[in-house]
């Protein structure tokens, strides 16, 4: 069952066509890779899916709802969330606070309930905290929960960023180059983490990656972009031997 369907998605910035007539879909529970040389438009696709950019043409259907042109905060509420290429957390507050902030859109009690100390608010706050701690444990960040986010190691911050995204209770995660700059053992840990996220938390994952080992390793299917257009789609084996893909990557950087 498709959780996200992208049809004829196009984004033009003035004269520049960043994404052209993109069509693909992701089924619930899959891990799909989105690859392509630098500047192929992969992050732009994420921005389009999450509502940061409005598409020039095309439609996006998520979980049965047409989310084309939706604002980012509404897309998150529906269950689609992304992480950023450069690790983005809230550096000045504690790891736990970061996580609880991520739970924001799932808390219903607003300002009035806060002032009047309603029991619903207290319950939801408690729930937020428990969920946060649970995810932190899952990510092996439990020991850090009281630390200020900017003081924990980079790799931990990376996991925290994913954790905050998970705190929004998404159905689908868009991960933008989760292993960039990591050494082989860290990369393997990330691979295991992503696989665990899919299996144990039931989240669908769309992954932008340059590290072919990661992509070939965990992705069930791969979509290849070049100059904003899809040039190939298929299983890792199919993509590996696809001549168009090889041509696209020839001469451009590829970390293997």
């Amino acid at each position, binding site marked *: 069952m498709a959780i996200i369907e992208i049809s004829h998605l196009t984004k033009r910035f003035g004269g520049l066509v960043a994404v052209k007539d993109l069509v693909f879909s992701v089924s619930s529970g899959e891990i799909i890779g989105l690859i392509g040389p630098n500047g192929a438009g992969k992050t732009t696709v994420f921005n389009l899916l999450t509502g940061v950019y409005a598409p020039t043409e095309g439609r996006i259907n998520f979980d049965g709802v047409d989310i084309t042109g939706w604002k980012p*905060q509404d897309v998150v509420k529906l269950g689609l969330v992304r992480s950023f290429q450069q690790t983005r957390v809230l550096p000045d507050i504690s790891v736990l606070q970061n996580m609880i902030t991520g739970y*924001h859109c799932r808390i219903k009690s607003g300002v009035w309930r806060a002032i009047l*100390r309603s029991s619903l608010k207290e319950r939801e706050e408690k729930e937020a905290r428990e969920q946060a701690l649970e995810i932190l444990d899952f990510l092996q960040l439990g020991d850090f929960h009281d630390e200020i986010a900017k003081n924990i190691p980079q790799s931990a911050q990376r996991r925290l960023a994913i954790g905050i*995204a998970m705190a929004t209770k998404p159905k689908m995660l868009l991960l933008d180059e989760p292993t960039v700059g990591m050494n082989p053992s860290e990369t393997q840990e990330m691979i295991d983490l992503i696989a665990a996220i899919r299996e144990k938390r039931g989240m669908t994952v769309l992954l932008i990656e340059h590290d072919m080992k990661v992509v070939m390793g965990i992705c069930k299917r791969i979509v290849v972009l070049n100059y904003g257009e899809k040039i190939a789609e298929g299983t890792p084996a199919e993509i590996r031997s696809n001549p168009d893909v090889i041509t696209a990557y020839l001469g451009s950087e590829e970390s293997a």
Partner: protein
Amino acid sequence: MRYSKWLAYLILIVLLCCVPLVMTNSYFLYMAIIIGIYIIVAAGLNVIVGYAGQMSFCHAAFFGIGAYTTAILSTRLGLNFWLNLPLSMIAAGLLAFIIGYPSLRLRGPYFAIATVGCGEVVRSVLHNWVDLTQGSMGISNIPPPNPIVIGNLFTLTFDTRQNYYYLVLFFMLLTLFIISRIIKSKAGRAYEAIRIDDVFARSIGINVHGYKMQAFLISALFGGLAGALYSHCILFISPVSFTTAESTNMVLMVIMGGKGTLIGPIVGAFLLMILPEALRFLADYRMALYGLLLMLVMIFMPNGLVGVAGSLRALYRKKSVTSEKGVSHGHN
């Protein structure tokens, strides 16, 4: 552990209630009332400036709208203070909506300048709409708040300084309570996220524009409340009290006290009310030194006095930890 905190607050409140009984000097009591009003101002402004991180320089406009609304309604229409008070707050809130809705789309310094512009326009309206506001002549003979009468048992009048102090004290405590509750909820977390990284905040489902509006509105409501209390305290208002310089002063209360903390605005309001009095002996040099002081504080203590206190406390904690370690090593 929580009970001791409640006890501490209770004792504090009792002490505050005793102030008029102890403070016989009428002028000091008057200062206490004014400080109380400005604590409401600063605490409200802290929500948009300190927590949400949006530099707003039009707070005097909300203060002024609150003051003028109740002044006009009570002198022209003879309306009851207790009706005017919420109306003043609503007027300030409406103004915040009008100013904020388009302006909060702007980032950092652009928003700051837009607020300056809006503040100046409001002041100009207060100054020039003579039919409504009596322009530069101001509004005088503002009556004290109507007495609270409970049947035949109890009448509380507010024409004495003492009783006015209790009125302001009540609203000040209410303000601080409400704001602390808001900050400790998801709204407070949203404000903080917006302040730190608003793009990131949006990406985790926070309606950035909506929460900025909310913070701005809340700060305006309390600004209007303070303005109304101010009006009925000093009994005469004119546009000169509601300039951009005043707004800047209010921002300084928040910043010098320590933005983004609950105590900061209290400290800041105290400081900026007491300081001009304390520096009175410097006479003509006062304002020049004030400017210099402002620069020095912003350069060396950007987190305000509360920030300095926090750093000192952290330093002290580190020292005592190391000395403990020293002891345990000694035993080895």
